């Protein structure tokens, strides 16, 4: 699907598919349940994934994300619910008949076969003629830049090379849907960053829908078109990366993605476009620029990201959204500094500041008395 160029008018086609109301989902997961004995691994999950998406399932271990992926691949069959891929009900179709391929966390390369034979394995099962298999294997190995290692056995490759063989092997059959289980988990940091961009390039080039499972929120943020955060077998929020970060809908997501300061309080006033909240930890009232639409005096949490808090020695002029405290910890990170500020209620608040100047003579340090403040649109009120 190519975006029509030259037209400055935003047509529905230029919106990402998942934001279009009438768009047909490519993968539709309908009220999927999976029980292992008494344990519910996946609990009533419904999810739509659209064509050309790079969808990340993000969650800790035991959150059910891997089980969901394994059900998409066909290694587990759902206890109840349906999985529809490209219009066909796949809930109980065996893995060898699904138009889906998977890249395993352990890579699962066949140790007794060469790189070439590993990549050719899937094509040979389709019964393609030999020269066709050869051609496509060579193309795929060139794409992942491993053409020169075609005859090696997997144990003679480095971790990064093995990862690329696994990727080539899962892509060579041109699946409609590619599943990736912790694709970058076993790589070191530098290689991981390179591979992230490589994955995005390949996904863009081939136009295959990707579903990635990861526990690494940074990885999910960089890779994904959309993220689904899972916890205890349930998808707690589905959103685009920036939306997930800026507008988490509950405490779990706010704390799971990035760092956050949470203040517990009660609603004082609640109007259509503003609300005030009283927190025991904070001297002033918290003023937010959006309504909460809840009962008065409801208990809520106010989430404020560390980089959205200003820190200074001078008292701010605003009436609301400020609090004072004493710096209890400072960490200089190069590009930014992290401060931990102890409030009078002994709650610790995390604040990060970019180190914009090389040397700002008056550096904040331990035991300095400081004032913290933030804007009305910087905080998010969470009711659950």
């Amino acid at each position, binding site marked *: 699907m190519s975006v029509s160029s030259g037209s400055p008018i935003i047509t529905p086609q230029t919106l990402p598919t998942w934001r279009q109301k009438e768009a047909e989902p490519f993968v539709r997961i309908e009220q999927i349940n999976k029980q292992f004995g008494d344990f519910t691994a996946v609990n009533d999950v419904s999810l739509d994934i659209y064509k050309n998406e790079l969808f990340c399932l993000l969650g800790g271990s035991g959150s059910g994300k891997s089980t969901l992926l394994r059900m998409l691949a066909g*290694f587990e069959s759902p206890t109840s619910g349906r999985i529809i891929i490209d219009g066909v009900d796949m809930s109980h179709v065996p*893995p060898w008949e699904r138009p889906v391929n998977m890249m395993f966390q352990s890579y699962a390369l066949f140790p007794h076969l060469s790189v070439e034979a590993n990549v050719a*394995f899937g094509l040979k099962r389709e019964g393609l003629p030999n020269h066709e298999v050869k051609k496509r294997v060579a193309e795929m190995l060139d794409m992942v830049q491993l053409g020169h290692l075609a005859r090696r056995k*997997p*144990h003679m490759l480095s971790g990064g090379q093995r990862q690329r063989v696994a990727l080539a092997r*899962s892509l060579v*059959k041109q699946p409609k849907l590619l599943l990736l289980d912790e694709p970058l988990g076993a790589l070191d940091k530098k290689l991981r960053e390179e591979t992230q961009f490589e994955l995005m390039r390949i996904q863009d080039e081939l136009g295959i829908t990707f579903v990635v499972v990861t526990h690494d929120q940074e990885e999910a943020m960089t890779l994904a078109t959309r993220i689904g955060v899972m916890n205890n077998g349930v998808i707690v929020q589905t959103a685009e990366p920036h939306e997930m970060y800026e507008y988490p809908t509950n405490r779990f997501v706010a704390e799971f993605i990035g760092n956050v300061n949470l203040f517990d309080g009660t609603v004082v006033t609640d109007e259509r476009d503003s609300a005030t909240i009283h927190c025991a930890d904070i001297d002033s009232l918290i003023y937010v620029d959006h309504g909460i639409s809840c009962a008065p005096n409801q208990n809520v949490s106010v989430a404020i990201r560390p980089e959205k808090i200003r820190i200074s020695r001078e008292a701010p002029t605003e009436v609301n959204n400020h609090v004072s405290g004493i710096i209890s910890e400072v960490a200089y990170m190069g590009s930014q500094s992290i401060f931990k500020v102890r409030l009078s209620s002994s709650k610790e608040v995390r604040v990060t500041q970019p180190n914009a100047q090389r040397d700002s003579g008056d550096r904040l340090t331990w035991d300095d008395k400081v004032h913290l403040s933030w804007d009305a649109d910087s905080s998010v009120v969470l009711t659950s």
Partner: protein
Amino acid sequence: MKQHSLALKLSAGFGFVFLYAPIIALIVYSFNESKLVTVWGGWSLKWYAELFRNDQIMSAAWVSLKIAFISATLAAVLGTLAGFVLSRMRRFRGKTIMAGWVTAPLVMPEVITGLSLLLLFVAMENMFGWPAGRGTTTIVIAHTTFCLAYVAVVVQSRLASMDETLEEAAMDLGAKPVSLFFLITLPMISPAILSGWLLSFTLSLDDLVIASFVSGPGNSTLPMVIFSKVRLGVTPEINALATLMILIVSIAVIAAIVIMRRQNRFQKP
């Protein structure tokens, strides 16, 4: 520290002497010129020549090799199946009993195994007329039964250490269960099956007790012939024969060890 390592060396040396001195003596005496087993009369190969002219021993050796080959092969097939069931099937009724049954021959006194098989064969012959009498067939069945246990144990441990995602990956790439087995699982466990086969081969070749129970007239295995000859007095010929058997068994066992080692190295990514 030094003292410690000396003690270790001494005990290792003692162990080696204890295990191998009798065998070395046997090998040396097989090259003895003298007709008296205990008197050294100079080097000679004449007892080997004598051995190959002895029809009774040669035919017994042929019977033994044939039985060892067939029962090792049967044990490899059945043992692999048993190993699969034990490692792959989640809990099923009677799994514990089956695990016990598979490992029982490893710990059961051979006399009991031999006796119980003999009783079974006799009862079967009375009921169905098969196996008719005792001979090569009954020995093969008996040897298969106890060799199977060794193969099952080796294959089971191999399967347990095998990464199951390999099989999932193969299915994911379009392999149906049958081609999955022949293209992925079998090549992965074949070193275990092969070493199980070699082990079974040597066990069958060595066995005296069970074979004595279940063999019939005219079907004496090599160990049975040796044993009956030794009762009339050890001849240098037997020394030569024993030396050859040690050679065959050592080759098989060393091959089994090498295969298992190579496979382990191969598995490490």
